[in-house]
């Protein structure tokens, strides 16, 4: 096996022992005297809201930047002046949410980047190919070592990133929300892999917001809040309620709000829609005012492409989209906004926000064509400032300074800026693409409350999500997509996890037949 792990001495001394770690960034205390210890063969979950200090902590552990204070012991030795290279050399291997892959290189080239097998400066291509193939086989990933990374889906890029972390000697593996873009099956594979690594005495630090994963995997959980260590609990004895309460500092009883659906007339009517790239085939679907229409499906089933096409971001080959009964030919984003359609992209950094620009400019960007904000090409800044200020007040942006660059915000606050866009103009159709990816429980609650308010105001809301519990709980009617087609439409009592999974399965069966 290629995952080469040195067997640790069988002692109770922790593999990693941090105490009193503090880190400041230009006056902000990101970490304040945090303690953390990880034993060999243990999976230790870091739990906390966005901005609680989880990212900073794993960056300190993987050598991205040094801590200002505190002691850092790894494998019984005091570690100073850690760099990312040295961290990897001593067996600390991080998998970050933001990928460290070179898009223009192949999977194999990325796996070996910086530690290529070579003789006298000449690459040993054969050996690397063999090792890469063996590793991917070992991990059970469906991944072509020769494929260029930029041609891969996000899920496959995630697999590449994990494989890269496991190449070579690993004693401590850090996983930052690794399942965010994996399918159920790939997640299952990852969990099996984690179990094997634990048996081999590898320590794991695992960052996740998903309770189910924490239940399935964790030995211990450390809760962080506002850069401080709140408590470390035994996963076996802690309840979900305990964890959430410790994380937020308040009690949260129900995650999903009770949404009173009152379906009105059909607002979005999709007939026989097929996309130019074939990701969506002959789809029929409608969404009514006053209800949430859910679209569930695995990663890559075409559900995102479908809503992107309705908004005008994917070229349509065949079929009709009707908005409020009128056919909508050749949609573009600009036209869609004029017709009252808003789209919230899954990837807020790539498609949603200009990170270098302030919150105010990002929030008003979709509405500047209105007379309210600009006349004859000249901006009305007073109107803009007061409108965005009021919206951010309503969305409880903290701190409420709308002149800060969006790049300085946490995931939850970034999502609020996106939501704020919807309030800057009159809209009647809202397309949410993976609305809760990368945001914490507190921010999720606010997003759900936002959707509830939209539905109550009579809007048509379409939610696309890979998180089954989310779409099941939010939607009034649920479409299930599979391989670019609608596999089922579920309503009322039929809307269950079993039925959704069954409809994937049924498709597989008919295809096989």
């Amino acid at each position, binding site marked *: 096996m290629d995952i080469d792990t040195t067997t640790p001495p069988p002692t109770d001394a922790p593999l990693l022992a941090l105490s009193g770690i503090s880190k400041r960034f230009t006056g*902000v205390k990101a970490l304040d005297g945090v303690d953390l210890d990880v034993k060999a063969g243990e999976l230790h979950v870091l739990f906390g809201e966005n*901005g609680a200090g989880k990212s900073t902590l794993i960056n300190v552990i993987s050598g991205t930047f040094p801590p200002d204070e505190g002691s850092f012991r790894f494998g019984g030795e005091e570690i100073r002046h850690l760099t990312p290279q040295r961290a990897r050399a001593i067996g600390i291997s991080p998998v970050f949410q933001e990928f460290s892959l070179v898009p223009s290189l192949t999977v194999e080239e990325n796996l070996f980047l910086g530690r290529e097998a070579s003789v006298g400066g000449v690459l040993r291509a054969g050996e690397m190919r063999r090792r890469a193939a063996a590793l991917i086989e070992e991990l059970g990933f469906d991944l072509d070592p020769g494929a260029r990374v930029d041609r891969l889906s996000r899920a496959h890029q995630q697999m590449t990133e994990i494989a890269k972390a496991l190449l070579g000697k690993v004693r401590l593996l850090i996983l930052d929300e690794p399942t965010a873009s994996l399918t159920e099956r790939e997640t299952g594979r990852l969990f099996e892999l984690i179990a094997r690594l634990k048996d081999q005495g590898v320590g794991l630090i695992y960052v996740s917001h998903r309770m189910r994963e924490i239940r399935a995997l964790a030995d211990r959980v450390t809760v962080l809040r506002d850069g401080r260590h709140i408590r470390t609990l035994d996963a076996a004895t802690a309840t979900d309620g305990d964890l959430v309460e410790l994380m937020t500092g308040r009690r949260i009883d129900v995650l999903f709000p009770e949404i009173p659906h009152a379906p009105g007339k059909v607002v979005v009517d999709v007939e026989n829609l097929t996309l130019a790239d074939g990701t969506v085939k002959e789809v029929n679907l409608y969404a009514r005012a006053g209800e949430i229409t859910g679209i569930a499906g695995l990663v890559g089933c075409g559900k995102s492409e479908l809503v992107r096409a309705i908004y005008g971001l994917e070229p349509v080959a065949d079929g009709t989209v009707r908005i409020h009964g009128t056919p909508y030919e050749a949609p573009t984003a600009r036209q869609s906004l004029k017709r009252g359609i808003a789209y919230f992209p899954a990837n807020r950094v*790539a*498609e949603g926000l200009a990170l270098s620009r302030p919150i105010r*400019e990002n929030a008003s*960007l979709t509405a500047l064509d209105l007379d309210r904000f600009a006349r004859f090409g*000249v*901006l009305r800044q007073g109107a803009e400032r007061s409108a965005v200020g009021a919206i951010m007040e309503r969305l409880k942006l903290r701190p409420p300074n709308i002149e800060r660059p969006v790049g300085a915000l*946490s995931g939850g606050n970034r999502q609020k800026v996106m939501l704020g866009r919807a309030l800057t103009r009159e809209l009647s159709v809202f397309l949410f693409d993976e609305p809760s990816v990368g945001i914490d429980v507190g921010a999720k609650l606010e997003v759900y409350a936002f959707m509830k308010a939209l539905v109550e105001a009579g809007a048509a809301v379409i939610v696309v999500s890979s998180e089954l519990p989310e779409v099941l709980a939010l939607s009034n009617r649920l479409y299930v997509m599979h391989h670019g087609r609608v596999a089922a439409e579920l309503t009322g009592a039929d809307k269950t996890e079993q039925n959704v999974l069954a409809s994937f399965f049924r498709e597989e069966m008919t295809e096989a037949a």
Partner: protein
Amino acid sequence: MTPTTGATTGTTAPGTAHSLASAARPHSLGLLRRIGFLPVLLVALVAGMAATDPQFYGPINILNILRNTAFLTIVACGQAMVIIAGGFDLSVGAVVALASVVSAKVMAVTLAAFPGSEGLATAAGVAAGLGAGLAVGLVNGLCVARLKVSGFIVTLGTMSATTGVALMITSGIPVYGMPQGFVKEFGRAQFLGLPTAVYAALLVLALMVFIQRRTLFGRYVYAIGGNADAAVVSGVSINRHLVGTYMLSGLLAALTGLLLTAQVGSGQASLGGDRMMLQSIAAAVIGGVSLRGGIGRVEIVALSALFLTILGNALNLLHIDSRLQPVFLGAIMVAAVALDELGRRRNARV
């Protein structure tokens, strides 16, 4: 993000030299980051030169500095807009030359055809010169926006082509025969002791500040440079605005060409050139325009144009070999970008 963050962004001490010297390190760094290194360098340079060479603050030299700053500011404003949108315009120097020879030629021809009608000749020449700049900008913009060729390559191509056309028109000989009024009453005229070019530059600068801060065009240029995909999703028509930035850059370069022509008194294919192009990029970059796009303010760019002009002037006065001067320019430009990157890393997200 922790709730304490607001405190750091909102509470920078008022900018006085006193607080710069006495404040604790994090504060002085914050202050320096807010006003930038540029004013400090500028003041140091002016003070140093005033102390070493009395010629420096003589009226002739100051007028010279202001005039050259004016030319560079106008070109750099256009360049800055292109870079903020995420592009690059290497053709500005060539456009200066083209506008010069085109306007001079049209003026001369019109004046020969209609003797005595100086006003008509001037108008026709100015229109032709500005039109030439707009045309080059349009070609640049369309290639970048529609054909998706990188701005660097497109403008490298048009730079070469434009220089060629300018040389063909003149055959390398200056074009004379412009209306006297254009040269005497405009190019070399002074108003309240300042050359017309300075007023033109101030006007352009004021207009550009307005465009950047108060118009949809300015806002969309920031958004496109900040994140083009997000701008598309937000319903911004990217292509139109990209073409707009290149046309604006072409127009402003052409305006500089006209001002230079009026001052020199003849149309010359040697005006502008690589040096002007390099300086305009340097002025933009030193003035805080990010090569990653989305960041930059023209008023700081103007300040950096002033700095670069004074630096060149100082090197002349100190009798430093003119062949060595581009070395200084290159070194300063690289240092400015390095400082910018350093600042970005310090501000890395928590």
